[in-house]
């Protein structure tokens, strides 16, 4: 499903974020990406939804090398990848409901289904109550849940979640992870970047550990920290 070959990434300002990354993630896998702040987790995910292009190497998603994807094709790639952004990226002038519905609208989803699917997604993350609020009127955790709802709403075959529980309490975090696990079992490839040790340790999934732009560990049924 996803394959990274000899990837390296230098940002225009000279910061090197990734070096020599080789990685294969199969269909319907559930993978945690862990590593200290600045290790390159977000950068790696950005490559997958073509928010950044690698300096060298190829990024193959669903058999297509998206590093060389034409500009016009990018939106269609992105519709197949749900992303929970680390900084939420909610549209500030749209309510929570509109934000989630927007992800369906762009795909040309018929109006009748938009409402149903949106409400369903909001319910999954317990955000029905805040559906009419604007992002600026939400608590940190609520924003995060709105973002998760948007990423889920059109059942994408690939779901990337960058720190999806950074602003959530342990109980809600655990619920969200159970939800993600359920989604994964419904044929969705899942990548979760996280710092949440207890969740990684509790889920017992494949864990890829990064440090300073390199993969330092790739372990099935892994735990957060290698040395512990």
């Amino acid at each position: 499903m996803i394959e990274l070959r000899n990837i390296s990434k230098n940002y225009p300002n000279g910061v090197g974020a990734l070096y020599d990354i080789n990685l294969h993630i199969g269909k319907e896998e559930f993978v945690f990406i862990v590593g200290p702040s600045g290790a390159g987790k977000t950068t790696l995910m950005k490559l997958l939804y073509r928010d950044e292009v690698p300096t060298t190497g190829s990024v193959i998603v669903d058999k297509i090398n998206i590093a060389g994807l034409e500009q016009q094709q990018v939106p269609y790639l992105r519709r197949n990848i749900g992303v929970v952004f680390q900084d939420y990226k909610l549209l500030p002038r749209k309510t929570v409901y509109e934000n989630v519905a927007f992800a369906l609208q762009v795909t040309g989803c018929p109006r009748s289904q938009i409402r149903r699917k949106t409400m369903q997604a909001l319910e999954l993350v317990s955000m029905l109550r805040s559906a009419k609020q604007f992002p600026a009127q939400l608590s940190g955790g609520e924003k995060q849940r709105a973002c998760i709802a948007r990423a889920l709403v059109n059942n994408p075959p690939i779901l990337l979640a960058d720190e999806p529980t950074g602003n959530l309490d342990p109980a809600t975090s655990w619920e969200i992870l159970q939800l993600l696990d359920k989604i994964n079992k419904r044929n969705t490839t899942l990548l979760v970047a996280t710092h949440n040790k207890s969740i990684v340790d509790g889920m017992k999934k494949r864990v890829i550990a990064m440090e300073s732009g390199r993969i330092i560990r790739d372990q099935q049924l892994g735990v957060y920290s290698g040395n512990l």
Partner: protein
Amino acid sequence: MVEAFTSFRRSGLMSMITVGIITISLTIFGFFLLLVLNTGNIIGEISAKMDVSVYIQKNLSDSEIAAFRSQLVSLPGVEKVTFVPKNEAWRDFKEKFAARFSLDDVVEDNPLPNTFSLEIRSTDLVEKTARMAKQVDGVDDVRYSGSYLENTKILVDAMRIGGFIFVLLLTFATLLIVVNTIRLTVLARETEISIMRLVGATNSFIRGPFIIEGILIGVLGGAFAILILKFSYDAIAARILSALPFLPVVVDKKQLSTIYIMVSALGMFLGMLGGYISVSKLLKEK
């Protein structure tokens, strides 16, 4: 459509200011269209008032004179024919020069001919009409103020061309202001557009609401501009007409509506263009 309206409403102050700037620009633009229209009208009036004097032979009978008049009326370009009997002309002449010297002392008989004064429709036709009038039987001489006419013609032409270039430049300036103002508004939403793209929206999907919003802003600006123009023009025109009745201010509803329609169409078009250009610019960036 609904999107654009909602977004317009939600961006509040920013939209209001944008509409304000566009209103002002379009008002200035419309104001100058009106000014140019009126200047053209005044110039036209001035040239129309330059008349050609046709001196006819002294000893024609009244019926001959009447026949003569109808011949002159049928000339191309002639708007109005006034007959000035030689006695009247002589009285005028004496009055005019009475102070300089006493004509009666030196002149025994009225030396002036009967004259037809022709009003010509347009400056361009003056020469031609004069030439043709000369060929009419019984005409002694035809006079028109040659060099004055020449100068006026150059001036009129210069002002017409100037006015045209000027309206063109102003259109361009208005265009730049309107398009760029909308662009500023859209630029401020750079983040929003980048988020839309991240969620998988195609360029055309993103563009839509922004263009509609641009049109909305343009139309609103145009509508306000027309309101301002209409009321202030009507007020000013009424005032000028009462204070300077000899100035031919344009009050023709049809001509005025044409200008108002032009202003609103320009507003709409520029709003659309502004929305389009600015989003495209942001879309191309990444």
